[in-house]
């Protein structure tokens, strides 16, 4: 076709030092003005494809490249990175690792200097680019003072100043809070509406990105292009495969596929919330005004104590359409077991040494054993500080935090580690062992267990987390999902009664996230307190029994997620965005959009777990 801007011909790539091919015989043409979403399980070569498009492969990263990538007819192997930068701009995922200057305008200028743009022209270009991303007024700001969302917008401005026609975005919102994500998505929407750019987007927040794309391509785990077409068809036809491969799909599509399985075919098959509203409206009556509609994994009886190992191969359970409402197992039991206070926070005010103002202001709350609690809020609202104080990573003031009845500030950290586990956002931070087994055994050894006991305990733990066969491997060599599970396992091996987790679903594909959350629910059902600090509103809606909302250092809300999501003023104040299915329920005017956990389950499809807990719940119940 005449207006093809990206031509990929039998592209095959292998990184130096890896045995496996990352991309395998990929052929693909992208036309000017198209907006293409790239999907695939983690490690399937999505980012590698992005790097091939702007010539970073093979210019900056070496490896074995075969086939060809042509950008506007220009072979990336022959063109210089500067020429390519004028054609293809790329925005990466880490807002902290794409800048090399201190000030906003200097950063934008950096790219222009590289292209030897005459100085007289720079001013205009910097202004235009910052204006496009809505940062015109921050031109003289220092980068470190920008929020995450603003940093990503700046990264986009830097690229736009170089005036490329193709923009590649590699998970641009992965590290942002909900408000930051919305900022970036809005901006992408504007660029798309402008019609001047071709967009290639790698993203796992599917509900948000779907309105922005008109084509989806799917890679398999071994780097082959397995599907290519309009997003609706791709998601509909390959839904089972995608679910099985652990690829995130729009939540509304998961719902639609569940309904389809029950004999309710939605037409057209929805991939965005507004579409789902339209498609479900005729069925709204049947959905029940009391909001007790059921789906997928709903009536799979949870058996709280199932080990996490073998769940995800199980076929989805199909709920008979006639069941009006189900209150099952885990929830009630958990409620009954609750009542053992593990954590009590009283009047906690905390100010970092040398800080101008306190990060936390008079926070009080208590958490019982058996609870699954989420702490949410915008970046900088104090949620991580709260979690760190509880784990005594940052020493709390005397008399403010009690864990199991003991003042945390008076307990030595090695001892506290036996009752409180803290799982870091990046698992690599916390690995101390040279092998997986060693890493888990570290805790028991330090706690004075004999070597035999330590190994036995650790092996049992690894077995429980499906990691036993990886015992001799180095923790750094594990996959994202395995690392995350290991980081949780080693924080539980001493029988810790409370587990704090910082962004547990970060960087996890759907299958791993589901598996992990099921495990956490099972742990809560055993009577432990699970506290997750997260931006993931889906996690909050589907898993948390209680949610604590932090706004500017104060605890602004403490209650069930359903009440949070119904309170628009609070959501705005806390800079939170409700998850897609909640949004859907509200737009459909269902009277009780989310009831207590367990009443409605909309399964996550083929990979939906049976056993431990609800898969996706509270959809339109």
């Amino acid at each position, binding site marked *: 076709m005449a207006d093809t801007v990206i031509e990929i011909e039998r592209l095959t790539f292998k990184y130096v030092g890896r045995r496996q091919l990352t991309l395998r015989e990929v052929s693909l043409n992208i036309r000017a003005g198209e907006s293409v979403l790239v999907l695939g399980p983690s490690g399937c070569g999505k980012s590698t494809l992005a790097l091939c498009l702007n010539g970073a492969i093979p210019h*900056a*990263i070496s490896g074995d490249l075969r086939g060809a990538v042509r950008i506007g007819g220009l072979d990336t192997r022959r063109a210089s990175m500067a*020429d390519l930068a004028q054609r293809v701009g790329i925005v990466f995922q880490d807002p902290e690792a794409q800048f*090399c200057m201190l000030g906003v305008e200097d950063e934008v*200028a950096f790219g222009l200097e*590289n*292209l030897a743009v005459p*100085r007289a022209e720079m001013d205009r270009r910097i202004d235009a680019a910052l204006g496009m991303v809505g940062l015109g007024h921050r031109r003289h700001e220092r980068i470190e003072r920008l929020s995450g969302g603003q940093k990503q917008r700046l990264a986009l401005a830097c690229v736009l100043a170089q005036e490329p026609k193709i923009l590649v975005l590699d998970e641009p919102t992965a590290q942002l809070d909900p408000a930051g994500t919305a900022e970036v998505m809005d901006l992408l929407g504007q660029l798309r509406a402008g019609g001047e750019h071709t967009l290639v987007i790698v993203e796992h927040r599917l509900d948000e990105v779907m309105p922005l794309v008109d084509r989806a391509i799917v890679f398999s785990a071994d780097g082959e292009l397995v599907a290519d077409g309009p997003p609706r068809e791709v998601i509909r036809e390959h839904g089972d495969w995608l679910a099985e491969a652990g690829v995130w799909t729009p939540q509304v599509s998961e719902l639609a596929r569940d309904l389809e399985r029950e004999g309710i075919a939605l037409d057209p098959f929805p991939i965005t919330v507004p579409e789902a509203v339209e498609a479900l409206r005729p069925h709204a009556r049947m959905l029940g005004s009391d909001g007790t509609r059921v789906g997928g994994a709903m009536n799979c009886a949870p058996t709280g104590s199932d080990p996490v190992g073998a769940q995800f191969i199980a076929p989805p359970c199909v709920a008979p359409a006639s069941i009006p409402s189900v209150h099952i197992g885990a929830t009630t039991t958990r409620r009954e077991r609750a009542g053992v206070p593990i954590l009590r926070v009283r009047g906690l005010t905390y100010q970092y040494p040398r800080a101008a103002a306190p990060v936390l202001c008079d926070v009080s709350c208590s958490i019982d054993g058996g609870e699954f609690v989420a702490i949410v809020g915008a970046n900088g609202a104090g949620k991580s500080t709260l979690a760190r104080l509880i784990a005594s990573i940052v020493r709390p003031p005397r008399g403010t935090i009690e864990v199991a009845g003991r003042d945390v500030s008076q307990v030595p950290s090695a001892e506290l580690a036996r009752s409180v586990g803290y799982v*870091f956002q990046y698992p690599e931070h*916390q690995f101390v062992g040279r092998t997986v087994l060693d890493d888990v055994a570290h805790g028991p050894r330090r706690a004075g267990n004999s070597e035999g006991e330590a190994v036995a305990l650790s092996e049992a733990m690894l077995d429980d987390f499906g990691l036993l066969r990886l015992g001799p491997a180095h923790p750094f060599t594990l996959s994202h999902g395995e690392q995350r599970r290991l980081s949780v396992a080693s924080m539980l091996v001493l029988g810790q009664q409370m587990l704090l987790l910082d962004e547990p679903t970060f960087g996890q594909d759907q299958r791993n996230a589901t598996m992990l959350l099921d495990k956490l629910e099972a742990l809560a059902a055993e009577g432990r307190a699970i506290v997750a600090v997260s931006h993931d509103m889906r996690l909050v809606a589907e898993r948390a029994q209680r949610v604590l909302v932090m706004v500017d250092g104060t605890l602004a809300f403490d209650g069930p997620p359903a009440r949070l999501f119904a309170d628009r003023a609070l959501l705005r104040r806390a800079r939170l965005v409700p998850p897609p299915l909640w949004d859907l329920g509200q737009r459909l005017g269902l009277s009780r959009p989310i009831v207590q956990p367990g009443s409605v389950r909309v399964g996550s499809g083929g990979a939906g777990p049976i056993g431990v807990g609800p898969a996706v719940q509270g959809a339109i119940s």
Partner: protein
Amino acid sequence: MKQFVWHETDSFLHRLNPLTKLALTVPVAILVSLIFEPLTPLAIAAVATVATWRFGAVPLMGIIRPLGFALLLGFGMFWTGVLYYAGQGADDPSIVPGPLHITEASLLYGLTMVSRTLAIFATSALFVLTTNPIDFVTALIQQARLPVRVGYAVFAAYRFVPLIQEELENVRAAHQVRGGTGGRGLLAQLRQSFGYAIPLLAISVRRAERVALAMDSRGFGARPARTYFRITTVTRSDLVFGVGAMAALAAIVGVPRVLGL
């Protein structure tokens, strides 16, 4: 020491070429090391401080605070100087009653040490507080022919250092939550540091690679020539500053001596 960084504003000193300001520290350092009495360096420190305040629009407290650090450092040097002075006049009778043997010569020596430290600190403060680090590296590239790659590596490092500090905090916290790596004593501490080093290294290398990739992706170093958004030049102001500074130094050193004070 957190305060000892660029004070972001606009002033006569801010508009100078960073290298001119840096160059001033050289004659000052030579001068104070040749002069053996406390008053001249003290006068230099005072003039530099007033200049930074008046011509650099830095609040007086912003200059005095880092100088306070110098004074603290100087205090140590003062006592070392006073107590261990072994030059001419070291055996004179003590000028204070009590067990301390302090002579006039040793007191003078201690005071000289302090005022030298202050002079060098005050001159450096004039440079550091009024210089945007970006401008400094730009001037090194444009006037001192520092290779572009090296210059931008410095920029990147500037952004990078606080990030790595944050990562180190994370790793340390994670180890603490895991109950530490055991034991007190030097060996245990060494082992502990080693435990931090590996994850920190892995994380830093990955971050650095990402920054490099982002820079390459924007065409860094792909063209033989580059243009500059910020231009640092040597202007008449630099000349004025240079001549003024030299005149001031000459006056401080010369006038009392000519007058035979």
